[in-house]
Every structure is written in C-alpha cells, then in structure tokens.
C-alpha cells in the first residue's frame, strides 16, 4: 500500500522537472513569437552561446558557482523547515567581511589571507542569516518577513559603507580600492586575490585559454555541495535539522531543541550565501562594489526547488541556470531587438515554471499514476 500522493522517485526527480522545463520553454516560445522571433533559432543561439565554446561553458560554470552557493543556502534552511529568501542580502553583506579582511589584513601572505577572507565572507553571511534565525526562534518573527527586510537593510547598509568607508578619497566610482593583485607576466599573486583559470594558465604556464571570470571558487562550490550533503545526511546535527524540518513535534519528543536548530540552520544557510562574495569579490571583481549579487540569491530559490533540495540536484539545477544566464547574454548580443530586459523576462518565466509552479503538474501526474495502479 503506497502512501497517498506518493509518486515513484523517478517521476519526482526527473519527470516533473523535465515537464516544467518543457512548459517553461513553451511559454518562452510564445514570448519570442510575440516579438517576431523564431523560438527555435533563439533557443539554438542560447544553447550555442553556453555550450558551443569553451568560453561559453566557462561563463556557464562561473554563473553556476553562485547558484550552487545560493541553492545550497535555500536547501539547508528548507531542510530545517524554513524558507530563507534572504540569500541575496546574506551574499551582499558577506562582501563586507571579505573586503574588510582582504583589505585590512593585506600585509599577510596570500596563503593565509585567502582562507581568512573566505572565512570572513562566510561568517558575515552567517551572521546575516543568524539574526533572522534568532528572531524566529526566540521572538517568533516570521523568517520570510525578516529575511526580506534584511535584504533591504543589507542593500542600504552596504551602499552607505562602500560609499563612505571603502571608496578611496577622490575616486568617483562607488567601490573600494583593489583587493590584491595578480601579475599576468610572471604569475605573482599578492593579497586576497583568487585568480581565474585564464589568469592561472597564462600567468603560471604561459598558456592562453579563452578568458572568462571562472575562477578557483568553482571548486569551492563543488566542495560545499559535497560538504552539505555530508553535513545533512552523515552528521547528528544534520539529522536533527532534517528531523526538525520534517516533524517538529517528533523532534521535540526526541529531545531536539527546534530553537537551536533554527539558529544553526540559518547561520549555515547564510554562510553558504556568503560564499557568493568569494566568487564575486575575491574571484572576479577584486574590489567591493555595489549590487554585485545581481539576483543570485533569488535564483537560488528556483535552483533549490528544482534540485529537490539535494546537493546533487542543486549542482545540476545551478548548471542549467548558468546555461540560461550565459545563453541569454549570447542571445541579447546576437539579436539587436532582444535586449537585456527581454532576457530577464525569459529567465523570469523559467524561474516561474521551475520554481513557483514547480508543483503544478503533480496532482495531474498523481491522478494518472494512481489510475494506472488500479
């Protein structure tokens, strides 16, 4: 006797995401037709832009790096039964930690400074997640509301700090001075500078590969995905997080303190979002600047939903969204009447179908499968 509403695993993990993707592409096609564009050729341009060249693929992985972090961020909170939509703010605030350590301790040698800066980014992100977690656990303030508010606070606070603290005197651009440097001629690294693969190959080996912002942080992303899997499924705290998220009453019976779990889960969640700052500030921009998260925190929600809150699924979903981002950029370059805004519309549609309407097919499929069973 199967429990009601329980679908075979392959339907849940593969068929539903695939159906949603098809539906999203159909809706996108309608938009393309509306603006007088052939959907198939547009799709072809997108795929070719992301997968057709090493450069496209490395951009895809660069975007995916952020999405893996934010997807994991949403998933960890979700396993504790929390909806953290503050990944955006947590990732943004984490830049403060990365820049403070990267700039303030720049007398340290890079083998010491880079891990410290990464740690600072994670800790600042964790702090920005922990506070809403604390407010939820101890004061009953709803996590969705507080994390949204914390996104706004982060935006304003960071703008203020970058403008009044980090901006060098006399400089027009609202950004900090450069964090570390990398000499392409001889491969010399100073400061909290995480080099891109392009820089490493050229500087250290004298090999010129196609240039992209893809940097060593992508390895950190894959390591984080594995670590979160281990944390959730192979540690006692992870067990407690999942138990609390699935059934808080049973967790209390088992002697688990939901308050504590909520705070831990939100701190870990925020810390993961904070690693976006590693990719962006330490690995790509090499300075602290405004609005560098660019919606990655929100994309993480769709990534986590599509990846079924499992790290392996999240890595795959993050790559898909990386593809969409890179493909969308190619499309806006190839077609003059498809501008950046249209690409955002397309991405939004895909997030809508993969994320918000993720369960839309479920009742229909369930009805089909149960009829087949009888």
């Amino acid at each position, binding site marked *: 006797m199967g*429990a009601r509403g329980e679908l075979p695993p392959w339907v849940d993990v593969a068929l539903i995401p695939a159906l949603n993707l098809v539906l999203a592409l159909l809706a996108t096609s309608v938009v393309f037709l509306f603006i007088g564009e052939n959907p198939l050729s547009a799709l072809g341009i997108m795929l070719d832009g992301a997968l057709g060249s090493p450069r496209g693929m490395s951009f895809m992985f660069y975007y995916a790096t952020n999405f893996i972090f934010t997807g994991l961020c949403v998933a960890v909170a979700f396993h504790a039964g929390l909806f953290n939509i503050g990944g955006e703010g947590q990732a943004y605030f984490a830049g403060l930690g990365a820049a403070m350590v990267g700039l303030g301790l720049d007398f340290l040698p890079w083998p010491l400074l880079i891990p410290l800066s990464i740690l600072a980014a994670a800790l600042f992100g964790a702090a920005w997640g922990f506070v809403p977690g604390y407010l939820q656990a101890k004061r009953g303030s709803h996590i969705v509301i507080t994390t949204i508010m914390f996104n706004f606070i982060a935006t304003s606070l960071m703008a203020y700090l970058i403008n009044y603290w980090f901006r060098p005197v006399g400089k027009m651009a609202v950004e900090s001075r450069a964090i570390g440097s990398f000499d392409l001629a001889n491969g010399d690294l100073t400061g909290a500078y995480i080099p891109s693969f392009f820089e490493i190959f050229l500087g250290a080996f004298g090999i010129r590969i196609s240039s992209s912002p893809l940097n060593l942080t992508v390895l950190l992303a894959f390591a984080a995905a594995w670590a979160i899997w281990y944390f959730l499924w*192979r*540690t*006692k705290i992870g067990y407690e997080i999942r138990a609390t998220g699935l*059934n808080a009453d*049973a967790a*209390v*019976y088992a002697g688990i303190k939901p308050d504590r779990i909520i705070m831990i889960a939100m701190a870990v969640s925020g810390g993961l979002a904070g690693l976006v700052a590693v990719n962006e500030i330490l690995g790509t921009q090499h300075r602290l600047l405004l609005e560098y998260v660019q919606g990655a925190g929100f994309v993480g929600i769709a990534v986590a939903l599509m990846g079924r809150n499992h790290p392996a699924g999240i890595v795959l979903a993050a790559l898909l969204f990386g593809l969409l981002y890179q493909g969308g950029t190619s499309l806006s370059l190839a077609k003059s009447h498809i501008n950046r805004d249209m690409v955002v519309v397309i991405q939004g549609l895909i997030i809508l179908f993969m994320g918000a309407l993720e369960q839309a097919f479920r009742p229909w499929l369930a009805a089909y499968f149960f009829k087949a069973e009888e």
Partner: protein
Amino acid sequence: MQTPPAIELIGIDKRFGAVHANKDVNLSVAQGSIHGIIGENGAGKSTLMSILFGFYAADKGEIRVKGEPVRIKSSTDAIGLGIGMVHQHFMLVEPFTVLENVILGAEGSAMIGPALSKARSELTRLAHDYELDVDPDAVVGELPVGLQQRVEILKALFKGADILILDEPTGVLTPDEADHLFRILGQLRDEGKTVILITHKLREIMAITDRVTVMRRGEVVANYETKKTSVEELAEAMVGRRVLLRVDKGPSRPGEMVLDVRDVSWRDRKGVLRVDSVSLQVRKGEIVGIAGVSGNGQSELLDLIAGITTPSAGEIVFENSVYGPDCTPRVLRGEGLAHVPEDRQHRGLITAFDASESAILGWHWSEALGESFHLDREKVINRCKEEMEEFDVRPPDPLLKSAKFSGGNQQKLIIAREIKSNPDLLIVGQPTRGVDIGAIEFIHRRIIALRDAGKAILLVSVELDEIRSLSDRIIVMFAGKVMGERPGDADERDIGLLMAGVTKEAA
C-alpha cells in the same frame, strides 16, 4: 400525527483509508429533545457529526431531516436545513466583536449595516429568551471561554438553527459554566429546539439528556432512554467487553523507587489546569497503569515525566535526583528513561525518514552510532536490522520509508528502539493503539519481559483491558486529577466509574 424525528441517519458508513470510522450507523433524534452521543475518543462520534454537518461525505447511507431525505454537501447546506454546530475548538474571529462574529457568513449584502442592526435586536431577544447574555460590542478574543462558547451558540441560533450540535462543549468549561450551559440547553429544548450533545462524560449525559446513544469503534452499540439507564450500564457499553487478551504474568516483585511524582500540576498556554496535583510512584519491577478516558491529563503527565514540558508546580524525582530546569528529554534518556509516545505517527517516528533513521530518533547522539558529530550510516542500518530481527518487524528493510510500515510494525519499531536502550524506566503511551492483534500480544509480552528484568514501567492507555492485563497497580485519572488507585485485578466496573469521574462516595 406523530412528528417525524428531527434527524434520522440510516446506514451511514465512512472509511478513511484503512480506518473504518463509521460502520452502518443508524441514529434517530426526536424533535424537541436533548440527545446524547457518548463514546471514547476515536469511537466515531465526531466523524458522524461532521457527516451530518457536511464536512465529510458518507460513503453510504441516508440522512433525513424532519422526515425529508436530504443531501448535505457542505456546511452551508446544513445551515440551510436549520442545523447549527458548536465546535470543540471555536470558530470565532477573535479581534471581531460579538456582533461581527454573529453575522459572519450571514452578512446579507455588500453593506453590513442592516445585518448588524438586525443582529443587535435579535441578540437582545435571544439574551432575554435563553439567558444568553453577551455584550454585543465586546471583542470576542477578550471574553472568557464560557462566553465565547455562548457566542458560538448565538451564531448558530441567529442563522436560524433549530437543531444544535455541540461537540464536547464542556471540555473547556468550569463546572459553573457547564451548569449554566446545561440550563441554556434545557431552555432551548423547552422552546422546541433539538440538541445533540457529543461527550465522553457520563455525568453530563445523566444530568441533561433525554436519550443517549453509545458508540464504540465506529458502531452504535446501544440506545437508551436516559431515565432508564445508569452510569454503570453506560460505562460498560462504552468501554465494551471483549475477549481479554490475558497475558501470562507472574506476580510483581517491586523493588526500590525509580520515579516519584510529587504534587505535580501543569497549566496549558490558556491557563487551563490540565494536570492537577498528581502524585504517583513507580518502583523497579512493576508496571503501573494509568487508566482514564483520553483527554484527562494523561498525555500531559507523560510529557512532564519525559521532560518535554515543565511542571507549573510540584516536582518529579527520577532515580533520586529532582528534575531541574535543564532536564531535557536528551538528558533524561542519558540517565535511563525511555519513552514510547502516545502518538506514533506524529511523534514516535518521522514518516518521511527511512526506518533506520526513525529507529534512532532520540538516541541519535549515542556514541555507538558514530563518534561525536559523525553519524555512521552503516552502524545506523545495522542497529536497525538487529532490532527488526529481534522484534519481528516486517518487512525487515531498514531503508524502507517509515510511512510504508503498517501501524503495528511502526509501533514495534518504536518499542524496539526504546526497549533496546536498556532503560531503568520505560514510560509508554497507548502501546497498542491501532495495532493488529498479533502485534498487541507481542508488544505486551515484551513489556512484561522488561518488568521481569527488574525495570520500572509506567503505562498509559485508554484501553481498560490493556491496563488491566498488564498493570500491577492501576491509577485512574479524571480531569487532570488522580481519582484513585486500585490493584491490577480490580473490578472493571469499579475502574470504569472512576474513569467517568464518579467516586464511590458520590455515586
């Protein structure tokens, strides 16, 4: 010509999955009478009334209202037929005033002004006719529960109900408030209204009803005219006599004291006293059973002893140390307390976890499952395999989702987990609720084996047979209090009366 019954239910049948909630129920309620429906929790009373009020559709059967066959698909249909319901948990909008609550669902038009003024005059009339005084402008959330209930009754009457269903109406009331409610109900009857009173309290039935229907396990087992029956007869019908699953059990050899509960009280968040100065002791090598109709403080007492909640007053001593503020379930487990919770589906295991994960719930910090923070998957699975073998859990698959096991096998999994921890004290709530006969015997034998190994056991069950066949001493709880203590072989009727809150002196 004889007036047709207000309500007639003919052959009502309802299943929820494997649970047969109502089995071919026939019920006839005369107009202008107060009709009691009595039975233990889970006997099917509430399901039956929900069918009558349109919350559920019956699988089979016919409903007649005043002789006319009707189809009730929603509560709107029921209200249209003049049926009103006062739920156990009130359906009121707390920040609204009494007046606003009363017109809820009967606003009449886009502007609520006319409805409000109509309701105001109607409330004055009802207050006059039935002693139903409530300030129409009071905010409902600020009223005491007794008055909130009155608002519920007013709501139903305002919508023209002449058949009123009350579901466990006195559960939240003080004795005084309950008396007032009964006076109101009496007046409603005298005005020709029909009242259906659902309860598990025998005394209320005796005090106010004209007729009474007894339900057990989804069936109507008896119908009485209240005047011609007795508390004893009702108790017997309600508790039921079925073949005793007598377990072979030698005499107990109680040793030193393990658990000492001293004058413990507990209030819920609304301030209602749920556990009232309870004292009891459990010694090594004995099974102490707590009998009582569900909802009389047993569950709350178990939570207090398990360290899930903290007493409002009194103290609990386990193995010579008093529970302190840091006495969490985890600490207590470390000291040798095991707990089989009453609600297996919601607490005992996590249905979305696989069996091996559910089988370590509460004991997951054990070093045997992995050093410090690490949880060794292989060890978890092996432990589960061993327990499944020893306790005959079927299918013996540690990777199967907990939800996919039958109730009996889920329960065996939980019992295995708790007993295998080798506790000094085992507290067990409803060990065999919803469990098939074979598993019941098995579970009973394991509990007795644990006793014979010199462990202390505190058992809570609403099944009197179970209490009597397992316990060495029986403590009866009613309304949060200990009503009395009896030996394990005490007379069933005697305990039944205590369970109904009737002491020898009062009866």
